[in-house]
């Protein structure tokens, strides 16, 4: 396939960026999107040009490192996949592909297509954990009976890889799906109930401080989420938040 890539290039966080066109040829439909970018970078390096910076790590869809807004959608046009799992067979010969960084005030661009997603880390640190005694007499988690339905829902919420596609897809750059998944995975389990009140208040406070937008319930986040995190988590977090606010 021969393609034209329109890629956001930005030297650093303080420099203004712009879209730059790169023609690329010989792209195999079995390549992953990141492999296609590797080919582009090899070509740029061989020509003495600076390669395009982009995030990647596991390249098997579980680490949440890869990002990219591809043709107006986070992780591209395929569903239930991260960019590393997106294959070039989703595109046609002659296509022009627009590649941008995830856009949100809370995700500032570091360079080219790499954004700083540490705001997610700070939300997680604000309450996305349970306090457990690890001094040698830790109680086995399996010793506490858990309703199967709740365990399944908790596990489904815990599959969020924190990639930020929800923020990127949302017209308001809202982080409600991410935060609600992290709140839900604990709120559904007896171990998580102990600190549930503080957890939801602190995580939502941190989410707001980071500058994410409000949730308009458009559902774009759920559609674009590579892990299929459900909007039900947002409803659950809203319930948790209302109850916690009344209690406090």
């Amino acid at each position, binding site marked *: 396939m021969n393609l034209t890539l*329109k890629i*956001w290039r930005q030297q650093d966080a303080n420099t203004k960026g712009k*879209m730059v066109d790169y023609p690329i040829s010989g792209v195999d439909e079995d390549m992953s999107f990141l492999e296609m970018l590797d080919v582009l970078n090899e070509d740029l390096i061989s020509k003495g040009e600076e390669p395009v910076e982009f995030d990647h790590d596991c390249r098997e869809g579980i680490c949440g490192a890869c990002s990219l*807004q591809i*043709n*107006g*959608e986070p992780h591209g*046009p395929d569903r239930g996949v991260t960019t590393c799992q997106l294959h070039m067979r989703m595109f046609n010969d002659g296509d022009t592909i*627009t590649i*941008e960084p995830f*856009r*949100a*005030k*809370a995700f500032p661009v570091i360079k080219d297509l790499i954004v700083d997603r540490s705001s997610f880390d700070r939300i997680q640190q604000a309450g996305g954990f349970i306090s457990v005694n690890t001094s040698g007499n830790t109680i086995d988690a399996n010793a506490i009976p858990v309703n199967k339905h709740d365990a399944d829902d908790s596990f489904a919420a815990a599959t969020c890889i924190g990639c930020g596609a929800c923020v990127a*897809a949302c*017209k*308001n*750059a*809202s982080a*409600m799906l991410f935060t609600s998944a992290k709140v839900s995975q604990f709120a559904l389990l007896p171990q998580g109930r102990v600190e549930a009140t503080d957890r939801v*208040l602190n995580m*939502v*406070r941190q*989410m*707001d401080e980071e*500058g*994410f*937008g*409000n*949730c*308009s*319930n*458009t*559902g*774009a986040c759920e*559609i*674009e989420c590579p892990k299929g995190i459900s*909007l*039900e988590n*947002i*409803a*659950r*977090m*809203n*319930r*948790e*938040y*209302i109850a*916690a*606010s*009344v209690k*406090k």
Partner: protein
Amino acid sequence: MSGMLNSTIARKVAMSLSALFLLIFLLQHFIINFTSVISENTFNELSHFMGTNVLVQFLMQPILIFAVVFHFVMGFILEIKNKQARDISYASYKGSANSSWVSRNMIYSGLVILAFLVLHFIDFWFPEINHKYIEFAPEDPTRYYHELVEKFHNPIRVGAYVIAFVLLALHLLHGFQSAFQSIGVSNKFNATLKSIGKFYAIFIPLGFIFIALFHFFNH
């Protein structure tokens, strides 16, 4: 309660509570208006009751006005804050791939409804307040039907009415279930709520359009 006062979720909860109040108001408004199609006397009696009852006039009416103003003001505040959350726009943003047009454009359907409300207030509310509380005109319990019918003589007004209620239908198609999602009512009732929401969003605005067209063509 401190956490409820200034957060994204608190704003959305407040937005949805005002929306739910307005949904109930709209339903009762529709029921009363619809009686004008069936019986002139019933419409006059109900309108007279609503226009003279102390509780309706001095408790429900101020709450309604507060809810309307709050819903619009909060809508604008949310829109501004949402724009601020993405300071650099995408060169390519394919919203249609993952969300409905109505859900992404609530502010625009809301603005059309706001413009209609201005017309509605000029047509009905301001004359009513003037009649009752400024001029202290003698009350005629049979005047309401004629006032309603007279307004629907003008085809431009009827056209504006139709356009506004089409936009209201679009607003409600997303707004109804969104209001419930924002207050956390979703898990068990999602499918039922969606169906009720769709029915309400289409039936009520269509009903208002029917009333306007009925009087336009019959008088």
